[in-house]
């Protein structure tokens, strides 16, 4: 069987082998409709080597307890809310949890300011509605409704971006595990296995505060930014290498030193102080998340592959760095210039990076 080439296969396709191996080795009891036992889900997310030698790669690098709380929440058929600043792997974790539990991470509602109630509940096939009148056949179920009917995990991305009244349409679904359809005078009952993972970030602008009625129906897990530089370097290099493979880049995997440089720059700007704590630096307006560090490294790899000598160096990083740090033309430029002059220039082994950044932006 050939897999059709897609840009980014969903988690259950990409890691189908790992999931199959885990399912084969899994002898613990599984909750109804779950493809794996809770313990195996935790192993899938955090990585493990199975008795038969299959290596399950870690998907989430971070506190084991958080993942255990998240999985336990889903076992108790409560909805899970993953909260964190941008780029803390909320959607990433949500996708992998759904893939491991239901084998389907695509029942997804993307929250935006324009998300309507139909996207959360159900819509109508208007041609049918007009031709045949209200009937179940004319009903267009939302991903959430489909998850309720099949006993799967539904995902709501960026919950706090939806208008508050649309958010609140989830309340009945979460507390009653049922969705009334008054037009047809019926009620869709969720089958066992149905649960919901929502993600929300608490930092960005344009966020609609969740009502406390809704918040009460979630168990909340806060995903922190990577605690140490080493952890973050590990995440970035691992993800960048995976993405490089997926994009079929001919370049070498990124050198650890380059990744470390990017991560250090990001952490220093994010925290507003250098690692040695001696120099205070201005914080740029962007969130400078781990996810952005990953994209700086991958775009650097792409540059190196197509226009450079294939190995990632200062010249390739500079362009990406500039784009990631400077989100606001005026204030971020000042912050970046100061950082370049006060920190980058002072580090002797960073001279190449300083030169490359200066060439790009000779302010």
């Amino acid at each position: 069987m050939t897999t059709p080439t897609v840009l980014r296969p969903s988690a259950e396709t990409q890691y189908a082998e790992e999931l199959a191996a885990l399912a084969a080795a899994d002898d613990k009891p599984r909750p109804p409709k779950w493809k794996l036992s809770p313990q195996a889900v935790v192993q899938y997310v955090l990585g493990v080597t199975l008795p038969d030698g299959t290596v399950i790669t870690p998907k989430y690098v971070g506190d084991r307890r958080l993942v255990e709380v998240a999985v336990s929440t889903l076992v108790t058929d409560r909805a899970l809310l993953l909260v964190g600043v941008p780029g803390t792997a909320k959607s990433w974790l949500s996708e992998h949890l759904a893939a491991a539990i239901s084998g389907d991470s695509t029942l997804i509602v993307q929250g935006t300011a324009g998300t309507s109630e139909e996207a959360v509940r159900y819509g109508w096939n208007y041609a049918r509605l007009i031709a045949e009148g209200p009937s179940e056949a004319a009903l267009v179920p939302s991903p959430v409704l489909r998850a309720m009917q099949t006993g799967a995990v539904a995902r709501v991305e960026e919950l706090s971006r939806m208008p508050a009244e649309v958010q609140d349409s989830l309340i009945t679904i979460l507390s009653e595990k049922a969705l009334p359809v008054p037009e047809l005078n019926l009620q869709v009952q969720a089958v066992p296995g149905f649960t919901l993972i929502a993600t929300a970030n608490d930092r960005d602008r344009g966020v609609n505060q969740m009502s406390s009625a809704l918040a009460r129906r979630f168990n909340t897990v806060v995903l922190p930014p990577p605690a140490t530089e080493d952890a973050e370097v590990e995440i970035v290099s691992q993800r960048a290498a995976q993405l490089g493979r997926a994009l079929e880049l001919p370049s070498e995997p990124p050198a650890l030193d380059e990744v470390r440089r990017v991560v250090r720059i990001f952490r220093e700007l994010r925290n507003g102080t250098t690692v040695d704590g001696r120099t205070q630096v201005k914080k740029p307006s962007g969130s400078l998340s781990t996810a952005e560090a990953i994209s700086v490294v991958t775009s650097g790899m792409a540059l190196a592959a197509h226009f450079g000598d294939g190995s990632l160096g200062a010249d390739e990083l500079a362009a990406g760095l500039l784009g990631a740090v400077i989100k606001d033309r005026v204030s971020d430029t000042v912050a970046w210039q100061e950082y370049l002059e006060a920190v980058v220039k002072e580090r002797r082994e960073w001279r190449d990076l300083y030169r490359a950044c200066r060439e790009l932006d000779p302010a």
Partner: protein
Amino acid sequence: MARPLPGMPGAGSGLMKPIPDRVTLVGIRHHGPGSARMVRAALDAVRPQLVLVEGPPDADALIEHVGELIPPVALLLHDATDPANAAFWPFARFSPEWQALTWGARHNVDVRFADLPAGVSLSRADDADEVDRVVVDPLGVLAEAAGFDDPERWWEDVVEHSSAEPTQLAAAVAEAMTALREEFADTVDRRTLRREAWMRQVLRKALTEYDGPIVVVCGAWHVPALRELPAAKADADLLKGLPKSKIAGSWVPWSHGRLAATSGYGAGVASPGWYAHLWEYPNDTIPRWMARTSHVLREEGLSASTASAVEAVRLADTLAALRGRPSPGLSEVSEAALAVLCGGDDVGLRIVHEKLVVGEELGAVGDGVPRSPLATNLERWQRKLRLPASAAEKSMRLDLRRDIDRGRSRLLRQLHVLDVRWGEPDETTTLGTFAEAWTVQWDPGLAVAVAAAARHGATVEGAAEHVLLERTKSAETVAAAAEVLREAVACELVSAVTAARAALDRCAAAATDALELLQALPALAGTVRYGSVRGTDPELLRAAMHGLLARGSAGLPLACHGIDDATAEVALSTLDTAHEAVLLAADEEHSAGWWEALHRLVRTDPSAHGLPVGRATRLLWEDDRLDTEAVAIRMQRAVSIASSGTSFVAGFLRGSAVRLAADPRLLGLVDDWLTGLPTEGFEDALPLLRRAISTFSAPERRTLAERVGQGAGAAVLVVDDGDPDRTERLVEFVRGLYERAGV
């Protein structure tokens, strides 16, 4: 029997003798609720004639008072001659030792302590060369090996849930410990061996005195060392020549917060509130805990519904199952509470930790328990003034016109003198002349301070007076004597006031340094100015203060002469505080004397150190006693002597940012001076000027810069006139200036 334990005296001599069957060894985990249950069950099963408990035998006489105590309590034992050398043995309700003590009291069975006496352990100074080896928590090691993070949970899961007889359980624990002791033989230090030798000695004695069953309750770690007895002489040899001091002590109330700290039994308990909960509610542990958690959160105004508590219990149970544990532990319930009840926000969790996991429980000690006369007296005052010792921090406002509040203030201050810091006065808020703000919190550790203070007297008042009198005798400086005087007045101790007054006169007479005299002023000024509603004669203080002021004023100009920079800094701050004191409290006549002294300081020739002179100039100028012209002249003159000019300006400017920004005259004055400096003089002036204004805050400096920018004086702008050479030189010069100024 197995091989003798490594390190035990007599090991290998073939003289080891197993203990008789009538002795039951119960190895416990200190402060472990699981162990406490095991001890109680074992005692009920064995019904011994005597119970030996790990603890200091010096306190045997205090065991009879167990019935009058409400835990948490602690044994406070201290050196009879040096009460500050003290140690505590805390007991909570869930401590196995406490269960053994109360079981004995309930069943009229003798209980004795068996461990190294406090008299020996407190005089261990000579053992300083003996480095304590790393102490292992044996149960912690076993629990870790089994993959548990909390030894108590492991104990619960493995020991508590087993259906074995308590005595068999104790035997199983002993087996495990013997294996551990062999593995960790290196970590057993000499002190532990001595303690165990003493335990065996006590046991030997008990075996001759009692013929019935005996139960020994001791740390599980020591059980292997007690299973067989070497020749008595071997133990006696080990204990020979230990220094021993006379010990006194009593029971004192203890708190859960204190239990969390390090204690006489080694490591403290991180979560006494949780353990107390485990002890109190063996059934429905988790639901009750979640109910209490949501109750605590609701009290803090956070939303935590009963429905959420139900979900939190479910999550905790599921987490425990996921982690392969028989029941949820503290980490599971905390994580569940965080996710469900606190919405992921750890502020709520911190409140729960403080109020529940640690807890605020304070124990009590009955009236019949012997205590020092001072402690009895203190309790009488606490009752009389309705000021109970409470572990929670409390702010109070005392109105000194009311007798009860005045009494409270007096008591707190007298205790302060005794170094019993029960309350801290809040000096920052001014409540006028007749009110005081205090923050009171009774830390059970203060019991040591009370015990240490007991040697000073039998009553709080008497002891405080004794301490103050001692301090007046040893006071060497005027400032120290003045401080004692101030405290004596606040404590309303008349004879101490008189003595302090005499000491002040004595020190003042001996003082040759005017600065020293002036430093004593602030301590007295407040009391003189605002008078005191206390019973002391304010005239007494007023006369003392004026005496000091008059003599200090006279000596001031001389004291600022020929001094180094460090002394000049002292002179500057003394000048400031003394000036404040004068403005606050001095009468007309003595104020005039002070102004006169400042004038003389400014006028002296050859001139005194720049810092105090500069400050005196400004003080005079601020009060319009020196006109601007005169100041300008003085500044120019001071500057003409290059070295002292800068310090003069520093003294003049320091701490005057607001004034400088608001007063165009002052700014103009400084500006004229600066612009008038020759190049070299300017370069010299810059670092000191910068130091003078470095104490200004950032907004102050910004305001100042704006004022200068608006053109307060005749500023000359250097314009790039197109000559690159000159621009280059200019840049170099400015950079040089910056480096010198340390910008």
